[in-house]
């Protein structure tokens, strides 16, 4: 009981540190922003890399443009259909990781 009470008191204090912009609070926010930005940049680079590779691959390997899957030319299948699930997966990955970063931040603030 006593331990729990102390824990509760600490939650309030750390939260106040974030809210009141003390040095500790500011450092924690900086850490969170850095983590979230790093995550967003990594996934943006992944998506941009995948997309921008398509025209380059076609130039490098012209055979790809004529390959057919299920009777549909590969570039049409990739750009017309497959792109969308890939974008969804990248977005889902981001949400999962971003929420984990936030959970860690809250845990740290409550610790």
């Amino acid at each position: 009981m006593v331990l729990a009470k102390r824990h509760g008191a600490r939650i309030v204090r750390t939260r106040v540190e974030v809210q009141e912009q003390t040095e500790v609070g500011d450092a924690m926010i900086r850490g969170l922003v850095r983590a979230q930005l790093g995550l967003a940049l990594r996934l943006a680079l992944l998506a941009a890399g995948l997309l921008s590779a398509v025209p380059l691959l076609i130039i490098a390997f012209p055979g790809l443009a004529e390959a057919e899957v299920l009777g549909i030319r590969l570039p049409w299948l990739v750009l017309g259909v497959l792109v969308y699930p890939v974008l969804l997966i990248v977005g889902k990955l981001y949400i999962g990781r971003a929420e984990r970063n936030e959970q860690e931040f809250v845990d740290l603030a409550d610790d």
Partner: protein
Amino acid sequence: MATVSGEPIPVATVLGLLAAAVVTVAIGIYGVRLARTTSDFLVASRSVGPRWNAAAISGEYLSAASFLGVAGLIAKYGADALWYPVGFTAGYLGLLLFVAAPLRRSGAYTVPDFAEFRLGSTRLRKLAMVVVAVICILYMVPQFQGAGLTVGILLGIPTWVGAVAVALIVIANVVGGGMRSITFVQAFQYWLKLTAVAVPALVLAVHFLGEEHDLGAPAPPTVGERTTVEITTDVVVQVSGPIAAGVDGTLDGADVDGIVTLGPGEHELGAGTALVLEAGSPVPVVAGAPATDADWLEPGSGLGGEHPLFQVYSLMIGIFLGTVGLPHVLVRFYTNPDGRTARRTSLAVIGLLGVFYLFPTLLGVFARLWVPQLLITGTSDAAVLLLPGSVLSGPGGQLLAALVAAGAIAAFLSTSSGLLVSVAGVLSTDVLRGRVRDFRVAAVLAGVVPLLLALGMVSVDLSRTVGLVFAVAASTLCPLLVLGIWWRGLTAVGAAAGMVTGGLVAGAAALLTAVGGAPGGWADWTHTGWPGAVVGYPAAVSVPLAFLVMVLVSRVTRGRVPQDVGRTFARMHAPERLGVGRDREGDLRSL
């Protein structure tokens, strides 16, 4: 512009058009009653889940460019045009990664509001307001042009009539207080547009699978039956093999009346010329587009003009980052209860748009097969509208045509109403005194200006015009938001300098495309070589430039970084559970 003559005006289509317009106005009137009692944003933020919100965002976002333009560009340019829908969707990934949650947590409900919240400058707020107004107005131009085209083609009346009619409906509706951005109405719009594009696409797909086709033949597309095309503006077409056609009018500068053989190469058809192609005849294709089906099927030939690879990359940069700065979309994020749901909403939008764009792609392919005569004049935006009627005869085709017409009108009305409400809102609160009368004055002004532009401008492809507007947004509001959210060193002076630079460069490119005239005119250099590529697709130049200027000027004026930037950052990035956020809902005015 061409009208396909000889068809009687279908009654079903007229009814479809009228029904869509009446329903939109009725919903607007009903919506006023609903919205008057309380702010829709606040109601919605407590009752609407990410799915409804995502449908509402998609409903407002899917404009004439998506509904008509994408299929038209695919019919004309083939594989490379697939980048347009990809970009329109991928933009929401950018929004998700860099903007959605922090913008929602900032509590700002418009970009000018964000500028003031983040950098504490009312002058920057005013500048952002001007940029928002310019983007909204430019975005309305292709909507009105698309409306003119649609009504003109379906009813055979001059294009300006449709543009004026739709503009008047939108202005009257907004001035009357209708078409508030009601979440449920916009969500319904998404499903209506999806139905109007999916049903014809699926029906035609069944028809397509029932026949034998060679989509990759090294020959131009052919017309299925005897077709007459009337040329209404001078056009240069290219011919890959000799084509015998009946020509009545001017061909390559000479008066012609009778059967002519068009040899391989480029030919100029004058305005007022009638071109008759017999059944099975190959179709001349507007200059700059792939002439044969084999070229069309393969990526790499670009979107007309030189430097195709640059075009594709620049287009992607512009659309990917431009979505991040679209004013009428950002407002909708305020209806999310918190940052977490803002993220989920963005993800759901990616899914909804991905489903939608499958169908314009299909229709684009079918259009090349079944209405190739549109490729002669290059007005391929009409493809979606003409397809059902030209493939299926009888009441089935008429019903599908009516459905498509209703969807197209819904697309123009919903997007341009959303834009007009956004621009009138910022103008009336930030420039005028924010009274109801000011809102009405602002709405009339902001509606008439794009109408005049739409009537006076050279009509380029709808999706291309929209692509240029995205480039302006990507070069102004996107760097403001992205740097504002992630970089503490941003100053108001830096933000202003970057927005002005990016806006001028991208805006100049858009202006040159709009008024530069045809190739060979006074601004011929805007059509050829690198200048042509940059003018048509400016984002790869203007976006990095805007970011660079914003960062450099902010470094120089680093003494003017706001004192409370730490607190601002805590509010934008800390999860709501910590209780540092605060909505700026006190600033929301009910209009």
